[in-house]
């Protein structure tokens, strides 16, 4: 802890809270200044009305836009700029798995305007009739030619554009090298073996079937996307054996890694980058066996209550100037050439964002079938309730 202030003014608190709401990049700071963590979840809804609404010029899109996204995924300053320019406040809901997002949309009445699905889920959203084809006339900043197709292809289904690329990344793990006794970890085999040995009680896995099951499958060298019954049974056995040794099952692992309670956790690129920047002893590792490479997209659910604001927000975030700030904050690479031109050379050569080719080639994109496969879903639920 750097500095603990024991009293802050109400206005200062709301400012800090608002910043924090926009992306927990400032989580540590927020916790230091206010001593509150979950305040955002409860008070979030109250925030927009507490901030004064500026005079609005660009055509009324309403006073708010509701974004469903992932932890530590945006630059709060960008949302403030969006509000200043349009008058619409960004209200953020944070999720830990694509399943959770799908469940909310399937149940109906999610109230979301924009959400951030991962590549392999988009076909399901389309077949379930849950997202709308994007009206590109409302997204002038979207330039399809600027994107590396590997990370933008999944946004189109049957020739229709349903989602535009946000950023991409990998799923590896972070490990605190202060506790490894000089050993350099390189594989998923070591991840699981250490968890059940010297790291007992110190490891976290995602609350997310795709990565937790997928990376357990990698222990045996199976495909990350396997739905083979025998292979899933092996993975389940490993997960159940490892469970008593886990510190927690959660997709929000930064706080525990930062305060030292957890020493190792499954992690996504940007969290690895953010942690490594603040704490050089935290290393981001991609298993030599492989694992996941993914691309996240912006999409608009059918019946979005603030549809105009949704498009305005996506368009705003696709602006290369804005997107560059996003990348600097969240630490995930973008596939947009325009944005990359604005980023510092050091970031474009960063080994966490852009892993060595031999590590990349072993990675797999998630497969659509894993999202709906009942065995994988039930395996994850059994593992958690074991």
């Amino acid at each position, binding site marked *: *802890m750097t500095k603990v202030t024991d009293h802050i003014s109400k206005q200062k608190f709301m400012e800090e809270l608002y910043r924090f709401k926009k992306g927990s990049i400032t989580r540590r700071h927020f916790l230091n200044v206010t*001593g*509150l*963590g*979950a*305040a955002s*979840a*409860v008070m979030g809804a109250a925030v927009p009305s507490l901030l004064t609404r500026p005079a609005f010029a660009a055509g009324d899109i309403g006073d708010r836009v509701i974004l469903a996204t992932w932890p530590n995924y945006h630059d709060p300053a960008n949302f403030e700029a969006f509000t200043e320019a349009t008058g619409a406040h960004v209200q953020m809901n944070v999720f830990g*798995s694509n*399943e*959770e997002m*799908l*469940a*909310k949309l*399937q*149940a109906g009445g999610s109230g979301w305007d924009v959400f951030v699905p991962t590549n392999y889920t988009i076909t*399901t959203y389309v*077949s*379930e009739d849950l997202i709308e084809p994007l009206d590109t006339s409302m997204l002038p900043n979207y330039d399809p030619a600027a994107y590396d197709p590997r990370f933008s292809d999944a946004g189109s289904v049957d020739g229709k554009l349903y989602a535009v690329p946000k950023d991409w990344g990998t799923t590896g793990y972070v490990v605190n090298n202060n506790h490894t006794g000089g050993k350099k970890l390189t594989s998923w085999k070591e991840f699981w073996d250490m968890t059940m040995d010297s790291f007992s*009680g110190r490891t976290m896995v995602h*609350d997310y*079937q795709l990565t937790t099951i997928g990376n357990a499958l990698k222990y045996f060298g199976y495909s990350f996307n396997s739905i083979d019954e025998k292979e899933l049974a092996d993975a389940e056995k490993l997960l159940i054996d490892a*469970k008593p040794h*886990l*510190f*927690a*099952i*959660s997709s929000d692992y930064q706080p*525990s890694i930062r*305060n*030292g*309670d957890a020493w190792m956790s499954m992690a996504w690129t940007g969290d690895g980058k953010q942690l490594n920047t603040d704490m050089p002893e935290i290393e981001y590792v991609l298993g030599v066996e492989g694992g996941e490479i993914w691309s996240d997209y912006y999409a608009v659910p059918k019946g979005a209550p603030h549809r105009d604001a949704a498009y305005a927000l996506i368009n705003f975030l696709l602006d290369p100037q804005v997107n560059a700030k996003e990348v600097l904050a969240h630490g995930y690479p973008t596939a947009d050439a325009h944005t990359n031109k604005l980023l510092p050379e050091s970031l474009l050569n960063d080994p966490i964002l852009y892993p060595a080719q031999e590590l990349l080639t072993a990675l797999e994109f998630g497969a659509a079938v894993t999202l*709906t496969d*009942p065995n994988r*879903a*039930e395996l*994850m*639920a*059994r593992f*958690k*309730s*074991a």
Partner: protein
Amino acid sequence: MSIRTRNWLLLAPAGTLFLALLIVPLTVVLIFSFGERAPAGGVVPAFTLEQYANLPARWTAFKNTLTLAPIGTLAALLIAYPLAYFLAVRADPKWKTILLILVIVPFWTSILIRSYAWIFLLGGRGLPAILEWMGIDGVRLINTPFAVLVGIIYGYLPLMVFPIYVSLDRLDKRLLEASSDLGAPAWRTFLQVTLPLSVSGIATGCMLVFILLMGEFLIPAMLGGGKVFFVGNALVDLFLQSRNWAYGSAVAVALVVIMLITVTVYMRLISRLGASRDDVAIM
């Protein structure tokens, strides 16, 4: 307007709510529980007992709930009773209101935020760090059943304190004097006068806490790190992750049935206890 019509009219709002918010949803859950999981998640109608046959797969969740809920209730009772006794019988009337407000104050903050506070208190930089400073190393508290129990007791204590307080507050203090005048030592007065007369408060408090605990999911999720799993957590997972509404409904029905049985047995026991006390009183 006849009295009958008027009574019906007065009952209508409650009746409508009861129907719309309890009977209808429960019926839907019951129907779902005989269905099957839709291919992409959700439910398709069917008539199968498959979901019920699969209930043992959530045995641990039921076991955790059925262990920690009674332990939590009992612990809350043991902590709440002396407090309620002090507030009702011993506290200076001048201070009583303030003390009572102090018991309620935590309710002004959401349980979510208060649980977050416990995450920090029980986490490595909280209590374990203090213990380490005192020379006790290697204590881990967060994400254990103990942490969940602490959260439960903390969260539900006021619900136990108040009913007991009310029953003790109504207690005729002259009975205590009479008992003492007749030569009973303090412990005997407590066991034979105070305690029996506060049974109704204890019963209400335990019931309130126990029923709510059986459906708890927030505290285990936050202080158990996803490792201490209640039926409530299993339900959240089945509806919000694996999207198996049919199985989720079966688990919910099972929970409701277990609660009905437990509460019925409990009520019987309490009324029998009450009855036997009356017998003693008559003798």
